[in-house]
């Protein structure tokens, strides 16, 4: 009963958030200067052409009506039609999803497989000596190098010197899995530096917090092996913030890794939305942002659920996020 109540409350607040996002994005798109007509018709368009275009996409109606039509269409599963390509936005999003998903999976996998062990290791070994400072500095460095610096550097190094990985030239996995991996490893690596470092830092903090708990002291006193203590007591109890962070990174990456897509010329979701902003392709921007927000919100609900399963004491969690 309480669970049902929790779920309905959660669903309601998620819906409210999504509605808020839809209003905000719709308003933002309509507030952009430089209308769709000038942009996609070009400077040579006549007033009649502009009016015709506006009518074709329903942009001559009152804004409130436009919003209502859009909202009802989205609720019915219709994300709208791109004014540039004249194709349904959902088709293009679907075509770009594999790129974004693959980048996300590779980066998040690296973050979990490398970041968590690193975090645990630096935590249980933490002593106030030079090694700890170096570790702190290194993981700090990892979260400090912005993607656009790291990406530029990687493109330069790997295109100038043949180092085995290809820069740009995305190959779908269905066409050639090996070539696909070669083209995706580098952008995924650029993204995962942050993810790994952030995961390591969060894991370390969480583990340090758990280490002082009485049950760990008791386990140490009982003479249990460090491995057993780490896997049984520490990881389970330190998992909440790490799970939260991982979910946040996942949601963030699924929203589109804009800079990396640009630098490596990958046809992902982020560049789709941002190009559409530049061209005032309203339907694409609205759909892209709404979808990213929906992913983020769903992810948060899942996290709450998972954290609740891992540690029933924690109902609501504070969430970490990166920019």
């Amino acid at each position, binding site marked *: 009963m309480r669970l049902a109540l929790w779920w309905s409350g959660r669903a309601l607040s998620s819906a409210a958030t*999504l509605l808020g996002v839809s209003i905000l994005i719709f308003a933002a798109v309509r507030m952009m200067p430089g209308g769709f007509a000038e942009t996609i018709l070009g400077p040579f368009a006549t007033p009649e052409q502009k009016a015709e275009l506006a009518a074709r996409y329903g942009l001559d109606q009152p804004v409130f009506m436009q919003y209502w039509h859009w909202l009802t269409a989205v609720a019915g599963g219709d994300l709208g039609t791109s004014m540039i390509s004249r194709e349904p936005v959902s088709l293009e999003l679907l075509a770009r999803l594999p790129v974004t998903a693959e980048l996300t999976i590779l980066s998040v996998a690296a973050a979990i497989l490398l970041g968590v062990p690193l975090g645990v290791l630096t935590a249980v070994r*933490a002593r106030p000596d030079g090694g700890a400072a170096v570790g702190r500095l290194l993981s700090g460095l990892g979260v400090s190098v912005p993607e*656009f*610096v790291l990406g*530029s550097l990687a493109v330069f190094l790997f295109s100038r010197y043949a180092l085995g990985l290809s820069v740009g030239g995305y190959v779908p996995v269905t066409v050639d899995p090996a070539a696909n991996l070669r083209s995706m490893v580098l952008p995924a690596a650029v993204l995962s530096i942050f993810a790994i470092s952030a995961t390591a830092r969060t894991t370390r903090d969480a583990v340090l917090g758990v280490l*002082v708990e009485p049950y760990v002291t008791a386990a140490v006193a009982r003479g249990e092996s460090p491995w057993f203590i*780490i896997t049984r007591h520490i990881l389970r109890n330190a998992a909440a913030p790490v799970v939260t962070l991982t979910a946040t990174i996942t949601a963030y990456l699924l929203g589109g890794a804009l800079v990396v897509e640009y630098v490596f010329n990958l046809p992902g979701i982020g560049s789709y939305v941002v190009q559409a902003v530049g061209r005032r392709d309203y339907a694409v921007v609205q759909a892209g942002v709404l979808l990213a927000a929906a992913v983020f*919100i769903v992810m948060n609900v899942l996290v709450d659920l998972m954290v609740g399963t891992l540690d029933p004491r924690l109902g609501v969690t504070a969430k970490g996020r990166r920019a």
Partner: protein
Amino acid sequence: MRRPLDLLSKGGLGCLLALVAFALGSTVDLAGDPDAIVGPRLAPPGPEWWMGTDNLGRSMLPRVMEGVGTTLLLSCTAVLLTAAVSAAFGILAGYRGGYLNEVVLRLVEVLYSFPAIVLAVLVAAVLGPGQFAALASIVLVTIPLMTRLVRAAAVGVSQRDYVTAAVISGARLPRILGRHVLPNVAGTIAVQGTYALSVGISVEGGLSFLGFGVQPPQASLGVLIRQGGSYMIAAPWLIIGPGTVLVVAILAINVFGDGLRDRLEPRETRSLT
């Protein structure tokens, strides 16, 4: 109870101060006019231009100085704004709870749901690219997290005895919030502020990198890196300087933030081995 800052954090603070001093150099034109065309295009570092010249023949040294200044000033201003707004709404929502709390939480959640860089690009598209857009983007990107954490801290503080005592003794709301709640969430604000600052610097950089941020001829670290990135082969000095400065700035802030957190929100820990 409070520990002194450790050496690493002090180093971070020192780095930051050095960068600020470096940036101040441009305000007094120590190295010349950053916009003036003074030499040949793409000249390597030399006695006349210590950091080389860019693709218009402008000396890089004053440009990097100006760039650091622009980026730091923008980010700091934005973070102060974020701190002010977050403190106001976070404390109010956390203390008052109820309907106001719900509204604040929902609004924050809406902003939070936008992918950060897409949010920044949208802001730049609506406001028109430039410093103001960069400022607004940083504020909007950093507000959600800080508001949430301040709110959470304020909820805890509101239940403390001294707050209850103040309420019973008839203190008015502004006094309670200002005298009793704010000082006790200030640590959270300070720590989050440093993290927001590093986020701010990378948002400014990313936005300018995409061409939506600071506009030429004004330099910012993002603008310089954007430009340098396309000249990496022919003129690596265009990106090495600003790139290093940017990374050092963010790293210094993060390290200092860690130290600040350890000091303001100390936590017992131990070694397992």
